[in-house]
């Protein structure tokens, strides 16, 4: 039986009826058309579906839409439009820290969480923090480089 949920997604109030079994990422993609969060494994390993719920990054495939009732949800589209991840995006573009781009939204949100916790991470700390996000294309080095660069930019007052 569908249940009604109300939540805030990227600053907009949303009310919808959803099946209890529907994952948060499927709800965002299929119901709201926010297709920036990707579905890679549906068992919480790859990180492509990473979104923010109540300010914390979660796996959108392991979170049910009904669990987000009343929550504040943010996706890659939202943090792009707000400018929050502009420094990371600029560094990723400049360093080519993405190839196919399927993992990229999850990596950007994860890197954002890292830089909030630790504004000056070492390369090893970046690698460790991102070790729950698959990237099959880049070999990770470009991503580590870009996160390092973005951290410097943000520490210098940019974002």
């Amino acid at each position, binding site marked *: 039986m569908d249940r009604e949920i109300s939540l805030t997604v990227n600053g907009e109030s949303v009310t919808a009826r959803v099946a209890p079994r529907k994952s948060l990422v499927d709800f965002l993609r299929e119901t709201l058309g926010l297709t920036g969060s990707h579905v890679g494994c549906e068992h919480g390993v790859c990180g492509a579906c990473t979104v923010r719920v109540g300010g914390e990054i979660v796996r959108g495939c392991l979170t049910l839409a009904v669990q987000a009732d009343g929550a504040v949800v943010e996706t890659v589209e939202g943090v792009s439009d707000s400018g929050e991840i502009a420094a990371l995006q600029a560094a990723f573009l400049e360093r*080519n820290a993405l190839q196919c781009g399927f993992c990229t939204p999850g990596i950007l949100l994860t890197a954002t969480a890292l830089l909030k916790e630790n504004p000056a991470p070492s390369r090893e700390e970046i690698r460790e923090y991102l070790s729950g996000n698959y990237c*099959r294309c880049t070999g990770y080095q470009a991503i580590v480089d870009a996160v390092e660069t973005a951290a410097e930019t943000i520490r210098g007052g940019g974002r």
Partner: protein
Amino acid sequence: MSDKPLSIQDLPNSYIGRTVPRPNARRLLEGRGCFVDDITLPRLAHVAFLRSPYAHAEIKSIDFAAAADCPGVIRIVEGREMAKHCTPWVGVLSHMVGLKSAPQYALAVGRVRWQGEPVVAVVAQSRAQAEDALALIEVEYEELPAVVDMETALDAATPLIHPELGDNLAFERKVDAGDVDAAFAEADAVVEETFHYGRHTGVTLEPRVTLADYNAGDRKLTVHMSSQAPHMMKNIFAVHMGIDEDDVRVICKDVGGSFGIKIHTYPDEMAAVALSIMLKRPVKFLADRLESYTSDIHARDHRVTAKMAVKDGRITAIEMDDLTGIGPYSVYPRTSAVECNQVLNLVGGAYDFANYRAVGRVVLQNKNVMCQYRAVGHPIAFSVTEALVDLAARAVGMDPAELRRNSVFRDDAYPCAAASGLKFEGLSHQKSLEKLLTLMDYDGLRREQAELREQGIYRGIGLATMIEVTNPSPMFYGIGGAHISARDGVTIRLDPTGGVTAATGVTEQGQGTETMIAQIVASSVGVAMEKVRVVTGDTETTPYGGGTWASRGAGIAGEAALQSGRALRSNILDVAAAMLQADAAKLDIRAGKVVDADSGAERITLSDLAKTVYYRGNELPDGISPELMATRHYSPRQYPFAFTNGIQACWLEVDVETGFVKLLKYWVVEDCGTVINPQLVDDQIRGGVVQGIGAALFEKCEYDDQGQMLNATMADYLVPMAAEMPDIEIGHVATPTAESALGAKGAGEAGTAGAPAAVANAINDALAPLGAKVNAIPATPERILMALGKL
């Protein structure tokens, strides 16, 4: 953010050899790409498949009466019904002499031959409803003995997978060059070993996905696919669905990783297309991760026994026996004989020796199918060769770098041919080797290694010399009857805005195809990068072409872009000369303007020129027929392939108590001819190396003796993650191919080709003082501890 438009002084050709960011990366960085699963259409239906739980079984009965009553179910189809709408295919090519396979159906008919083979398709309003219905379908199977072990696949007692084929041997090839027996008899040392290479798979982060949209009104089929080869798929859909090929359109927008996985004919995708035609509505199939592991092609399941002879400090002979199991079918249309064939071609390919004997056998099994995955055959060939080189060096007391230095083709030896028959136009093994040894400080590392060994720390250095097949000519597939274009074209159009649009048949999966094409077009026409738009991935709007595989994008479409840009430039200058009453030879195009070639003074902008041509053609002199569009094609003809070469080195530490390997540093020197965008090339190499490291250390599709895949989840099938990967330093030597004006060769697969060999050699180098060696990859901690006698 991006480079500023280049100044006039920088042009011409200034974008070639320059790092510029990828314009198409911006949308991906905002989550605004368009992957196939992002597309919705009116009346879109979803298909899910009931798949065989057995590796080998007779289908006795199928009952889907209960499933048909489930909410949202639109149609349920089994194999015999599906075969009326989608004809079976056979994965053979005539140049793979003797290759045999059996007809493969979109849904199994009568018998299932691997765990994961699709048996019943359920179409429903949603994927969840389709899966609900699957659970109610009753299939009665009679399990048959499964052919799992390739070593016994040809035994008389082993059941036949396709009785009509007479045996389980799909393909066999033999090579015998020079006098192998004499070379071994005369050798200073002979080393021999048996190697095992694990079956693994591509793990594209975006699973395979196909959205077929048949419009019964105009009888046209549009298929949105995550694919590397849209024109090839257009032909295949037409042939097997019985529709006119001209009525099929294949669109590939963003593709979430491919690596050779998304270039084959998959039964579930064929079924989805057939269902769209049957139901006259759009139907989508999206593989879930379990389906990816059990139905995306696998690769690399090889057992190789090989030996090498060394005399006077040089390699003189190699003999090899390669056995590989490919699953129950040779995959269509590229065939599953190619990997073994490549192994036979490539073994020893960097070394100048004359005596080579090899046999390769490709056998059928009841496991998922195997076919071409990034660097097809190369990782096996170089793992075998390079392991033997290290063993041989040890046997004759030489440094492994020294034996390579003595044995590679000399840089002044070209053109020349390998013992296997491969033809080389121009390579740089000697320069590349010396550059690598300097880059990594080889002697310094050897000293460090020796000092650390005194302290009980076991570090190893692994070298891997390699070559790579790139820029394939029609000799790769077309000659054998495959409808796969070896030729690619680029059409460039100048619009009244002064903007330039380039359309090409090669495709983008994130490697930077569109950026590379834009760089060449901007340079050859004479406009800023920002003025160039590139169209790929649509059979309706791009020149007919092969797509992206075998590292062909830059070398083949890049050359077409260069020639097409030059042709458009010439057309524009002819118009400008007529308009300006000037000599075309004294004009030039720079930064979007026609200028006097000598003074650089602006004469007319391309925008103004194009506006005149399109809007006010009456102002043009009589007799002028302006063509602001040009197309050129390119296909290599002198050489079957433009080989590249490279050498890789790995520096790692083995924990001899736990068997864990820590990668410390990695170096690559690569010669891919003219480099168009250094950053894109280096990142292709890095990403490729990391996939090769995955093969060396982590990745293996584990099967039990019933043919059940045991680790078909991302949690169980391990791939390289950020924390374990080293930084990779890259150097270049450039030997452009003289066959094209651009001189570019491919770079997409080199990393994957050499990395397993370099990592395995480094592990064995670390273990050598303990008298241990590992001859199987992935070199897991378990295998290392077993080699050390600790397990």
